[in-house]
């Protein structure tokens, strides 16, 4: 090699490797860039929404109707490992989904469906807990981060009982006490009241959250399985949730009192 060329080449190589290192380092160490609360923990406060089409089907799917977009799927391995009986139930759910999906009755979407549902949700965060308010139906789920434990016994909650702790910059949430009356999507995917869900919430960058949920439910699944979606911060100017008490649509027309002509 020509020695005169070697020095500039070496410098170039050094510069390139430094550039590459920087590029690689950014996604691995977002700690400097992510929002943090007064306690130094990652601060998930904000209005979030998934763009995954997961609510139309967790598994990969094509457009089934003119109203339902296709989706690449959010299940690791693409397939939910149902027991044979549960698979039959899922097929029944799918066939009746136009009216059997609890969403069509405005029931609370549940956990984790509310996270990747088609409407945004807002996180309010304090050191002791995270308050998740969902636009659809406007229910509130609390993730306790104050070293409290699940209550004794089994309680049928629509949103489950959520107790979280921090694994460095990841919020790990243990969710139990489901009522088994919610679905996981519009395609009839479901869980039972014995579901044990473990969520992992972490920032990709300040406006993107990686949400992972691992399902364990021997009544319905042959083994644990995991889904992952990204949540995007809603950045529109003055964005806010609009209360959507969906169930009131069934009778809202009767109120308030008519006062025309008075």
């Amino acid at each position: 090699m020509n020695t005169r060329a070697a020095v500039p080449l070496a410098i170039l190589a050094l510069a390139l490797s430094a550039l590459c290192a920087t590029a690689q380092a950014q996604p691995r160490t977002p700690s400097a860039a992510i929002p943090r609360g007064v306690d130094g923990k990652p601060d998930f406060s904000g209005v979030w929404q998934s763009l995954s089409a997961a609510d139309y089907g967790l598994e990969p799917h094509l457009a089934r109707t003119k109203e339902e977009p296709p989706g690449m799927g959010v299940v690791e391995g693409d397939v939910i490992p149902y027991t044979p009986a549960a698979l039959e139930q899922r097929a029944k759910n799918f066939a009746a989904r136009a009216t059997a999906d609890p969403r069509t009755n405005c029931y609370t979407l549940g956990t984790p469906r509310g996270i990747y549902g088609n409407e945004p949700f807002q996180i309010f965060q304090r050191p002791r807990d995270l308050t998740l308010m969902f636009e659809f139906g406007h229910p509130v789920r609390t993730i306790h981060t104050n070293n409290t434990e699940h209550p004794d016994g089994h309680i049928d909650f629509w949103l489950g009982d959520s107790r979280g702790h921090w694994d460095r910059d990841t919020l790990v949430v243990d969710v139990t006490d489901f009522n088994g009356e919610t679905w996981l999507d519009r395609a009839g995917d479901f869980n039972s009241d014995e579901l044990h869900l473990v969520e992992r919430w972490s920032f990709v960058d300040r406006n993107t959250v990686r949400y992972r949920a691992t399902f364990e439910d021997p009544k319905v699944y042959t083994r644990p399985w995991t889904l992952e979606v990204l949540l995007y911060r809603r950045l529109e100017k003055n964005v806010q949730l609009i209360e959507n008490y969906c169930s009131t649509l069934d009778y809202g027309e009767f109120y308030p009192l008519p006062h025309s002509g008075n």
Partner: protein
Amino acid sequence: MRNFALPIFFGALALASNVAFGQGMRGWRETSFVPTPRGDWAGERLPDGQPDVSGHWSNTIGNHNNLTDPQGPLGVDDEAPRQNSRQNTREPKPRSERAPSRVSDPPDGEIPLKPWARAKQREFLKYLNNPIKPEYVEPFARCAPGGPSKSFMWHGYEIRQFPGYVVFLFDSGNRVIHLDGKPHLPANLKLWNGDSRGHWEGNTLVVDTTNNNSKARLGRTGEFVSENATIQEFFIFDPNGNRFTYQAAYTDPTVLTRPFTITIPNRRITDKTPADDWNNLTFPAKHAGNEPVIEAYERICVEGNGNHGQPAAATH
């Protein structure tokens, strides 16, 4: 296995229930309003500077049965069929020994309804226990949100505070008070709990609430306003953070002959407050430490309810 109904959700049976006068209420209920004057805040503050008023609260007077005579009879036609065995069976105390009207202005304690609106209110009350038309069903009985004021006439509730927000968690519905000065939603978006913008003035949270759909009644006695109503609300906290007074000044030229003000006294619930299945719906959280931590179950009224609230169930 699902046979333990949470008392919290009995509240959903609003058409029928008269649980406000249940046994556990007696220690909590007061017959006068404890004043909390406006002034400076001397108590704890949150890191963002807000007075720290977070925690569990309940009103001290009574439920939404009767807006202007909170501890009086419902005033409904006695011939109407009773919804359950406890309804209308207890003789009320004389008026002078009951709490005053929640309508603190005008001085007569009544909502200044225009004559047509007063007639509509009386019609609603007449059919409350025999709702022969859908419009006679009190929306709250369908698990609809209570609206800005009536939400404070129901079970205990929680206040949570965050930078830029005060959040109220009720049994039926939730409210977010935005403190960041963003503009109101477009005027044609009418909401059950309205659209609220607030700021702190000393010990007082001052809230401007617009975009009201006013579908919720102001009490089971049927008083109402229209979707043109605007409300200015004052949450006036006492210096030690144990009480606050809720004041809501309503303006609505469609239904009212003049503005009026609703006043509701409230008290803090602590780990020492006896559980009474109505005001105090908290329970001790399970944890390894010794300090008392109280929390409330999820508050979801409407799902699977067949219009009247299927109680959540649990086994212990």
